[in-house]
């Protein structure tokens, strides 16, 4: 079968026309593309985080006669950090697709932006550990400068400052490394297939 001989037959439509009314109805529906789904999930996560962190912050500001307002401020600050995190992710998602660009440019853009998105996700998801440690440490030592018993994680007469800092540093390093490994596995599970697929499509174009 020669392809050039098929052009005349090819010009016939392969199915029934959809109709103006059906097409007009489609315009009001949500896109089901992976990128739009990610954006919707992100908005939902942001609303949940605002509600949860906001509620906890408000609770600590109001309850206990503002004795623990520092915890409230800690949560408020974490909420601001999360908002910046979500804003950054949303920006990357908005940059991820250009459907009216040439197919090759669109695929390159998607791959580049998705790799940036994954890197950002990985770094921020891992950096949250030292950030939380620092916040926890500030709150803990502010509220309870000393304990009744000896522990390497609290400064005392028998536990010099360098020792307790070293203990926290080791704990922090181990936790961060574990978080990095877990995040890498999770991110690869979420986006690894998409990245491989995009690379495959670009390889087809460049063959």
């Amino acid at each position, binding site marked *: 079968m020669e392809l050039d001989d098929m052009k005349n037959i090819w010009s016939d439509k392969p199915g029934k026309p959809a109709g103006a009314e059906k097409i007009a109805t489609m315009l009001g529906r949500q896109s089901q593309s992976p990128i739009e789904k990610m954006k919707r999930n992100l908005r939902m996560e942001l609303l949940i985080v605002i509600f949860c962190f906001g509620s906890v912050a408000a609770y600590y500001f109001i309850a206990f006669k503002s004795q623990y307002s520092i915890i409230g401020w800690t949560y408020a600050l974490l909420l601001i950090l999360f908002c910046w995190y979500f804003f950054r992710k949303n920006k990357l998602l908005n940059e991820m697709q250009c459907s*009216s660009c040439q197919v090759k440019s669109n695929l390159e853009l998607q791959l580049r932006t998705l790799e940036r998105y994954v890197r950002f996700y990985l770094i921020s998801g891992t950096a949250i550990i030292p950030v939380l440690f620092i916040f926890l440490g500030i709150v803990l030592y502010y509220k309870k400068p000393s304990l009744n018993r000896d522990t390497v994680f609290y400064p005392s007469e028998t536990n010099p400052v360098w020792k307790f800092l070293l203990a926290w540093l080791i704990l922090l390093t181990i936790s961060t490394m574990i978080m990095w490994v877990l995040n890498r596995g999770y991110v690869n599970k979420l986006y690894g297939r998409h990245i491989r697929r995009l690379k495959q499509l670009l390889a087809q174009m460049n063959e």
Partner: protein
Amino acid sequence: MTQEEFVRQVQANEGIIQKICRLYGHTQPDREDLFQEIVVQLWKAVPTFRGQSKFSTWMYRVSLNTAISDFRKKKRTLPVSETEIDSVEIKSELSDVNEEEKLNTLYTAIGRLPEIDKAIVILYLEDKSYEEMEDILGINTNNLRVKMNRIKEKLRQLTKNISYGT
């Protein structure tokens, strides 16, 4: 562009979307979903159409970008041979049974090509010049000519195998 103008343009060029859905959607539900997704993406991309290229060229870009980037897990129904699906869809459009069979075979063969090759064949069969194909796909014309020769050879083999039932 108003919604009415847009709907008219889509209706006038609906064949493009249907052919892309036919080749990139593996089952009827997939094709219907893809058709809807392409229409939604076209409507969202309307502000980017500035009349510098033909509406059909712009439509090809958006439709192919949507179809090729569609990484959703495909819905699977009970396994039905592709030839049976082709026959149900094409039968009413063609009077010549021999032509119908050839077209079914062609659709089946194109459906077995990699995603990018499918896009190249669609544009070739739509009588687009290599310059227009470059404008839509972003692959240079020399590369397109080489690919097209390889695709023609692949399709010859595929159509032979399909005709012999392999």
